[in-house]
């Protein structure tokens, strides 16, 4: 069975059916559907970060770089006045961002720990400034995409992306696939080595594995999926902005991940929802929402050592 842990099964059986039915409850309220779509997209992004940080033990403060690149690559390669095919461009964007990740990963994975945090930050900042100072990519004001892709696959039109509900289901579908994808990888023979490189890289080398290559492969996979999330985001409102690549975006994703719980496949989703929920709540409470948000983050770090997912697992353990 793919989902061995009880908490995982519980989560999947509650979360996805609930999300599937959500548009029925929301009764076509475009705002909530859009909001949920953007949370699902970001959850996908955080999940790709979780794979790097939680499963591979590679801490990066520059993952948002790929989130932004997803949007910009789409802007650069797609013709402006013609609706492109969603699936074809998904493929293009994943391949191109994977190629970039291969080069970047080759550089950053030579370092580790705190130095890797810093060099990923530096490279992400380089891309950030590249896009925010460039005239052809709209500079700091960003660029617009005027047409949404069409999604026909083998002649069957699957989603109408101009329809928020359709787009919502595309996001949910993507998130579910990503979750299963990571779960399959982690359960695979490749995943066995990934676990080994995280837990004891020295031992893994002594056993004859080239740790660097496995890390690089993981980095490429996570980056391509991060770019896919950015591609979805840019499509939602037809809008790409350099702040997608900023270190604040990377930092927010890390906060969400740790809030949700690293290394558990559903922690990324929980964390994104919890963070967005808190943010939404405090923002409507007061314009000084940052005070409460900051305090909440601080308390959470100190009290919840393994995030919400860790807390849930503890509860389940106690009961069984």
């Amino acid at each position, binding site marked *: 069975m793919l989902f061995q842990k009880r908490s995982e099964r519980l989560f999947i059986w509650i979360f996805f059916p609930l999300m599937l039915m959500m548009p029925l409850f929301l009764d076509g309220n475009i705002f909530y559907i859009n909001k949920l779509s953007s949370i699902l997209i970001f959850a996908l992004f955080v999940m790709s970060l979780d794979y790097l940080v939680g499963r591979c033990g590679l801490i990066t403060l520059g993952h948002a770089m790929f989130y932004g690149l997803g949007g910009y690559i789409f802007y650069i390669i797609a013709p402006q006045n013609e609706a492109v095919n969603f699936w074809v461009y998904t493929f293009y964007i994943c391949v191109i961002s994977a190629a970039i990740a291969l080069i970047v990963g080759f550089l950053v994975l030579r370092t580790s720990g705190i130095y890797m945090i810093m060099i990923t930050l530096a490279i992400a900042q380089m891309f950030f400034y590249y896009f925010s100072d460039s005239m052809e990519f709209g500079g700091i004001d960003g660029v617009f995409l005027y047409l949404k892709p069409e999604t026909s696959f083998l002649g069957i039109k699957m989603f109408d992306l101009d329809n928020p509900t359709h787009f919502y289901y595309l996001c949910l579908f993507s998130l579910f696939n990503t979750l299963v994808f990571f779960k*399959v*990888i982690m*359960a*695979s*023979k*490749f*995943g*066995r*080595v990934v*676990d*080994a490189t995280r*837990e*004891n890289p*020295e*031992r*893994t*080398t*002594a*056993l*004859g*594995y*080239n*740790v660097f290559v*496995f890390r690089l*492969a993981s980095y490429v996979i996570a980056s391509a999926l991060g770019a896919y999330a950015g591609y979805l985001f840019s499509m939602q409102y037809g809008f790409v902005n350099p702040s997608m690549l900023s270190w604040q975006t990377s930092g927010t994703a890390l906060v969400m991940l740790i809030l949700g719980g690293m290394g558990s496949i559903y922690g990324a989703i929980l964390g994104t929802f919890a963070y967005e929920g808190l943010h939404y709540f405090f923002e409507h409470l007061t314009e000084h929402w940052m005070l409460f948000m900051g305090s909440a983050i601080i308390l959470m770090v100190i009290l919840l050592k393994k995030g919400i997912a860790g807390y849930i697992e503890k509860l389940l353990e106690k009961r069984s």
Partner: protein
Amino acid sequence: MSQVMIETEGLCKHWGGLKALDDISLTFADKELHSIVGPNGAGKSTLLNLLCGTYKPTSGRILHKNEPIDSIKPYAFARRGIGRSFQKTNIYPSATCLENCAIAAQRYMGGSFNFLKPRNKEPVLLHIAEEALHKVGLGHRKDTVAAAVSYGEQRQLEIAMVLATSPCVLLLDEPMAGMGHEESALIIELLKQLKKEYCIVLVEHDMDAVFELSDLITVMVNGQHLVTGTVDAVREDPRVKEAYLGQGDEVY
């Protein structure tokens, strides 16, 4: 003497001005247990780290089956069948004992870039891993998380992991360190069995064990080769006694 597995020629390792290892030329033969002994700081661990590729030599050569291997990558040593255990227990603590060995076995079984094949659905690989556990007497512990087994068992697990890589050379760095008497006895029995099949290089402080097990003993002092010989020859050698007494190390 049987076939030579590993040979070093004028091996040196310098840390800045410090000569950790100076001009060591040794041969290690198949199906023999060759111990390296000496007082603290003699360079035993450095030698072992060079033999398994963790360190690169400052000068000199290492030959494996007559091919120079001193410039290959660290992970490539293990691929040639040079497996090692560590002085400090070095395992995957959160994985089960079986999984620990499975990681080791998968290296030479291949398929590590198979993203789809479930890791627990390969009977041959799991069988090899289990066999390695049985060899060291840990068969009953296969589903226990490695962090939860006793210290002695963790040492055994280390050896099992090396065995699961199907090596031809075993480099064992103090496998009995910190063990009780009974646990040591277990390892000694184990090594007696293993040396019938493998070329073993053993670094060990427990001299009783060394004398009991070794076919050849090399004594090192201050990074230099002092003497190599059979157990009896080394036991009688006055230079050895002097070296140990001079260091104030209580061995006998």
